[in-house]
Every structure is written in C-alpha cells, then in structure tokens.
C-alpha cells in the first residue's frame, strides 16, 4: 500500500476543512522559498517505517494556528503555532498511517522552526509529496519510507 497523491490531498483537505474551516487547493511547487518555515514530523514504525512531514511558511503556520485557536494571526503565540502544527501533523500522519502496512505505531509529533529548512531522512526515499495552498500559503506534505527487513520484529503496541 502506497499513499497516492490523491489520498494525501484528500486527507489534508479533510483536516483543513474539519479542524480549521479552511479550503485547500493543489499547488505547483516543490520547495518553499520563504525564509522562516515551520516543519512538523511524525514517524510511523512497525510493519511500515515511514516519516510524514508538513512544512509551511511562518505566515501559513500562524494563519492555521489562528484558525485552530479561534484568534488572529497577529494574536497567536509562538507556542500555539507549534501546538497547532504538531496537531495538524499528527492528524495528517495518523490518517496516512491508515494507508500503510499494519500493525504500526505513530510517534508524537515534533516541530521545528527556522530559516530555509531542509529535512533529511537517512536511509529513506520519498514515497510521495504533494504541495497544497491554503489561505494563499503553500503547504508541503512529504511521506518518506525505509525498506523493512523481512525478518524484522514488528511492534504495534501503542503504549
């Protein structure tokens, strides 16, 4: 099972629509040029060994956090932006996990903020990447995957 671009786009559309009340559109970009970016990641381990990341601009992250917290981009605090990007990553990653081999386990999200970030996942290849636009800001969703050794012990316990 491999998440298709349509799968990822639909998952993001549902998350943005249900939780933020915002629309998303498919965008034509492979990189985010803005200086300051937010990147959220979750890892999926077990029958799958994958990483899901969501990357967006500082402006986009603040707009999405404001939508989640019911405030404005000017009012939203830095820790609220981190919380919102982490939860968006959790929801998108968790739903992408449902398209990957089972059983597997979803990590807690991690969020990075900084200038011109590039995320590297050693030993993994990009399984799929989609670019979306919401509120005029780009969102890059990337799914990496590493090969699973045939004799690997599969862990599914969520605890």
């Amino acid at each position: 099972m491999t998440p298709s671009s349509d799968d990822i786009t639909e998952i993001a559309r549902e998350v943005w629509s249900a939780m933020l009340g915002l629309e998303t559109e498919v965008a034509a970009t492979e990189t985010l040029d803005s200086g300051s970016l937010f990147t959220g990641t979750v890892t999926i381990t077990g029958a799958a060994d994958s990483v899901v990341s969501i990357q967006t601009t500082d402006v986009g992250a603040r707009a999405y956090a404001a939508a989640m917290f019911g405030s404005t981009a000017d009012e939203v605090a830095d820790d609220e932006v981190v919380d919102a990007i982490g939860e968006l990553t959790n929801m998108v990653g968790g739903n992408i996990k449902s398209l990957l081999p089972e059983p597997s386990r979803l990590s807690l999200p991690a969020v990075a903020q900084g200038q011109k970030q590039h995320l590297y996942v050693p030993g993994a290849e990009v399984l799929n990447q989609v670019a979306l636009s919401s509120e005029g800001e780009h969102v890059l969703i990337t799914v990496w995957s590493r090969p699973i050794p045939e004799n690997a012990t599969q862990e599914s316990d969520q605890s």
Partner: protein
Amino acid sequence: MLALVVDDSRAMRLILRRIMQGRGYDVVEAGNGQEGLDILAGGARPDVALVDWNMPVMDGLSFISACRAEKDYRNITLMMVTTESEQAQIVRALAAGAHEYVLKPFTPEAIVEKLELLGLSGQGV
C-alpha cells in the same frame, strides 16, 4: 453536566471545549492521561471524558484502563478521540472500556452525534 477533555494538544482541547460548552457542559482539561487521573483523584466526576490516544506521560488507552479498574470512576462515559484507525487498535480500546470511538479529523456534528448515541447530548446552547 461535566466533561473531561484529555489531549496533549491545547488547540484540540480548545476545539473540544467549545463543542462541549455548546452543549451546555462545564469542561475541565488534562494534557495527558496522568493529569486526567489526577483530576479524578481530586474529586471531579465528569459525565463524559473525551480522550486522545497518543499522548506523553500516560496515553489514552492506559487512562481508560485505569478508569475501568477504579470502581469510583465506572460511571464516567469514555469516548476516544484519536487519529488511530487500525481496526485492531479500535477493538483494543473498546475492550479496555471505551464506549465510543471518534477519528480525527472530526466535525462538531460527529461529536454531538456520538454524544446523542450515548444519551449525553446535553442541552445545546
């Protein structure tokens, strides 16, 4: 009526708080399962607890198991609200004592629908 929201995301707690307050509930919040148990140990007796699965310190499954092991907490209706969609995990949560299971992302209507199924729809304000 009182609802306990257990989720490590402040944004998610706020979203659930608004939904529950819209149904006339008072709401208390916890950032993980242990904080939820601490609130119960302090005497709070919510009618319903909305519980995330994947949290630091104590996850939602452990919280639900702990609630079901304590007779004073057995009247609390437990609703899991999570991204965890594997069938085996859903079965596991229900076997541990969860009454309902809601997948993220959700709409407010989905939460209210589950509350109605449980006879806990509140008043709607």
